């Protein structure tokens, strides 16, 4: 059975070198700050062997947007969830792209940009994936009326 790490177990892994980056704890996730997130992800991938980025997705929390990362370690058979808050408010949400760590984020980050309107800084090809170039708005936002 893949062990799904609880929030405090994820904190234990991160507390040695990234304690000041942890913003809050949930039952089964840790929310980290966007600053230096790539260092933390590199640490998880290389030191902690979370070599598979299962999925990247986003949630419109009305007051802000968040990006959710599901990571899996094939060697340890464990998985964990990391969240990043894209800043207070709904204007111009952005986070750092994790493509340099996991190539698997490439199309998923484009999809999030397309449907949720979150910019990924450092993505080499940040353009719409599913909708056409001139489409106005981002359909998965809660204020998008279909």
């Amino acid at each position, binding site marked *: 059975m893949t062990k799904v790490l609880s929030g405090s177990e994820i904190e234990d892994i991160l507390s040695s070198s990234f304690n000041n980056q942890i913003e809050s704890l949930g039952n089964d996730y840790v929310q980290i700050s966007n600053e230096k997130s790539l260092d933390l992800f590199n640490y998880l991938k290389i030191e902690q062997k979370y070599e598979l980025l*299962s999925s990247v997705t986003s949630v419109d929390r009305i007051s802000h947007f968040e990006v959710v990362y599901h990571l899996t370690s094939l060697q340890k058979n464990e998985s964990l969830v990391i969240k990043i808050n894209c800043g207070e408010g709904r204007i111009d949400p952005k986070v750092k792209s994790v493509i340099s760590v996991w190539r698997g984020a490439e199309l998923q980050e484009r999809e999030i940009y397309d449907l949720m309107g979150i910019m990924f800084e450092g993505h080499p090809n940040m353009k719409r*994936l599913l909708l056409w170039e001139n489409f106005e708005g981002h359909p998965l936002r809660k204020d998008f009326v279909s």
Partner: protein
Amino acid sequence: MSTELVTMNIGPIHPSTHGVFRMRVTFDGETIIDAEPIIGYLHRGSEKLAEERTYTQIVTLTDRMDYTASMTNNQAYILSVEKLSGITPSDRGVWLRMIAAELQRIAAHSVAIGFLINDLGAWHTPLLYLLREREKILELFEMMCGARITNSYLRPGGVFMDAPDEFWPSLNKFLDDMPNRLDDIENLLTDNEIILARTQNVAILKKEDAINASITGPMLRASGVDWDLRHRNPYDYYEKISFRRPLGTVGDNNDRYLVRLHEIRESLKIVEQCLDLIEPGPVKPEEVPFLVRPPEGESYVPIEAPKGELGFYLVSDGGISPFRCHVRAPSLINLTLLRDMVIGYKIADLFVTFGSIDVNMGEVDR
């Protein structure tokens, strides 16, 4: 000799693009020097639609994502709903949906292999042999739930109806026949000189690259990584089942074909074991309400779908429909490395490689 570069548009309407896939490919003579996938022609906004439907209604949306594997789509979604709302499924319901899921895997891999051979230029004959076997599975599904492709068979807590009495002898007959039909297909295809020449050592995908690009499913196993969620994260009752996990050694198109072919045989064994273990009983617990109302929270349960890791990330705010429903679509993510895999090969290899990745546009675009 270098020639003038030609940029060509392939698809979205093209028999070898398995739906509405489009590629902008740049050639130097016949050699591919760049390929960009362009998708979105089948985008229906399923994730947004899910936000306005009840948890039971969304089952029908999941059917239409990977429409060659509706049962496993249902399964991934239902597992996530059950975890979110704390529903314990009934025993018989779980066995029935495992039988359905494994039959679906056989059907989906038959389609994958058939169309791969089609892409190789063996027009229609091998494909029809495989589609004939798939047809038998669709008839079994019709007995189970009345639908052939878009089944909507699963419900939170199990399945919506028991399989009728005439289903079981038909299933046994299928299980007896299928190994022989697979032998025929293997005799026809596996050692075929043309297929070997066209698929061996073409579009090799290395282990590390595959993991780094989040590639999962038969494609990952063809690259030699022993990662099958039925084995590593046994959802439903897979921990009571034993099966082998075929692995590739090179990671080329031929390995991806062989892994799928061998997985069909393993799926047959899994169905047989399920038949030994299934017992009479309710297919769904009485107490599960029609309107599922999970508490606030979120869940993500990945399963091994025919295409790879499929999971529904559901966020609930306590209402009757999810606040957010995200689909981790293996077809989309397995396309990440298409460009890297085909560069340097010839135009004819492009379609074979695309076929061996086995994407379903309904799932890519959602």
